[in-house]
């Protein structure tokens, strides 16, 4: 599809997403869509890490660290805004830690290490009662404050959490977009495609991998921090649940690995189908879409949803490789001379 068409679709999608709180959606539905947006954020963060070649089965660790970090900061009296940011920082550090510890692991081994990492944090949260509240978790987390300088509709009740979720999703997409267009994206792709070769070309892989972990952990943890301020409790089994590790992976794979918008689109679609259509009518099967999505990817759609849109370049192009139109015309002459 043409670039203009994509921008148009993106703008329409954002405008549609701005509407629900203003049109009097029931708070429960607002909460569901907010959660879908948060899943979109985590799925996009997961995809950012996958872009650097690191497959994680443990994003619940980063989401949960963000949740606990933000909850503890908020309960200690910090403003929720600062608390969520602090949660993000905790998640970034935690992610960089597992990135460093598993520096020599790849593929399935890395996946297992990250899975174990999330489980370890769940165990820590269960047992470190003095800080985490143990299995009962922490309650009484303050809600997001309303903002006097914004029209009330934007921050009252569930609207505040909703718009902040939307803002986080747009932020992580914008950051990923920027990375794809920078040296960072080039290094990430090189480390992903041929780590040893990247080394021979001057790219020391480890710092780039850790940076990818930290960035991915930061945005997942922001989502976690916001989530606990929406549900206002935090429990180990809720927030370190494997649910938050596996779903982002499924969503990103179904949406299109390494693509900019696929994971977020798939997260919104899959989560809302599961919660709005299946949960009310066939509750026992409400997780079926995730399983079906994986099967569809394996059997029919190796490129995920993004693979359905014919494009000269199936995965996200780096602008480094696509000179502006005028440039290209000039380049043609040079090529001809060569």
């Amino acid at each position, binding site marked *: 599809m043409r670039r203009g068409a994509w921008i148009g679709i993106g703008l329409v999608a954002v405008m549609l997403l701005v509407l629900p709180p203003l049109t009097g959606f029931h708070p429960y539905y607002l909460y569901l869509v907010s959660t879908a947006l948060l899943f979109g954020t985590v799925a996009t963060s997961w995809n950012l890490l996958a872009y650097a070649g690191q497959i994680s089965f443990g994003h619940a660790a980063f989401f949960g660290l963000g949740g606990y970090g933000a909850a503890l900061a908020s309960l200690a009296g910090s403003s929720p805004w600062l608390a969520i940011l602090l949660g993000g920082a905790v998640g970034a550090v935690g992610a960089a830690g597992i990135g460093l510890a598993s520096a020599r692991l790849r593929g399935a081994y890395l996946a297992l290490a990250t899975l174990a990492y999330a489980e370890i944090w769940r165990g820590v949260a269960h047992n470190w009662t003095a800080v985490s509240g143990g299995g009962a978790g922490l309650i009484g987390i303050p809600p997001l404050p309303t903002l006097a300088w914004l029209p009330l509709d934007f921050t009252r009740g569930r609207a505040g959490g909703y718009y902040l979720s939307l803002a986080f999703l747009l932020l992580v997409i914008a950051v990923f977009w920027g990375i794809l267009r920078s040296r960072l994206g080039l290094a990430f792709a090189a480390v992903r495609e041929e780590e040893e070769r990247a080394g021979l070309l001057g790219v020391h892989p480890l710092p780039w991998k850790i940076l990818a972990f930290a960035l991915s952990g930061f945005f997942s943890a922001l989502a976690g921090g916001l989530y606990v301020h929406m549900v206002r409790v935090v429990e180990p089994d809720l927030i370190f649940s494997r649910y938050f590790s596996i779903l982002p992976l499924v969503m990103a794979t179904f949406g299109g690995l390494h693509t900019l918008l696929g994971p977020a689109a798939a997260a919104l679609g899959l989560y809302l189908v599961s919660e709005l259509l299946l949960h009310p009518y066939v509750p026992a099967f409400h997780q079926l879409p995730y399983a079906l999505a994986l099967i569809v990817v394996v059997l029919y759609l190796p490129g995920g949803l993004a693979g359905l849109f014919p494009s000269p370049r199936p995965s996200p192009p780096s602008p480094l490789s696509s000179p502006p139109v005028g440039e290209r015309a000039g380049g043609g002459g040079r090529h001809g001379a*060569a």
Partner: protein
Amino acid sequence: MALLEGRGLSMAFGGLLALRGVDIAIEEHQVVGLLGPNGSGKTTLFNILSGLLRPTAGEVWFSGCRVTNLAPWRLSGLGVGRTFQIARPFAHSTVLDNVLVGITFRSRHRYRRTLDRRREAERLLATVGLAEKAPARATELSLGERKRLELAMALSTRPTVLLLDELASGLSPKGREEVVRFYGRLKERGLTIFAIEHAFRILAHVADRLVVLDQGTIVAEGRPEQVLGSPRVVQAYLGDDDGP
């Protein structure tokens, strides 16, 4: 003074001795060919010289400095470049990006501006005849094109010494000859070349020196006509099925 030097290099993989005390010196601005039967340790030697393997014993010297066990990115920063026998591009990246990695992350002659980096990448691709393929993915290239990309990637860090691992193998006789003649042009541009090639008779035309490795030891070295003239070398290690 030798630009790149291996002193007493040995490499053991478990009980298998791939290299047994190899002494080798590559003089500046020379083309040196490395010959030897399969399994004689040629690629192992390259892996040590480019920093991918740590030798069990021995030292690597570059430009008068001891560089044994330096990481590949450090050696690359000093000026060692290499290609792989089986091309190892960044498969799902574009051909242009494949070349841009080295241009962007090398430690010498860095460009600050994206545009300068892209210009150099385009120039490099034109040098190896891949200009038209810049937007294609590396996976879409033919075997010959992949070999060219290997060379362009190795050149992208602006090395002073190039380790070329069978760059001409798998190509048509004409393609092989073109590639090997290209070594001469690289040498004219001031590069030092250490090349593994099976097309040794073509290599003999451009090489200043040939080294023959067998079972991890150097069994012959000298000027091409001396080495190739030795009947023992030709019959025992090279066979005679590869001449033009």
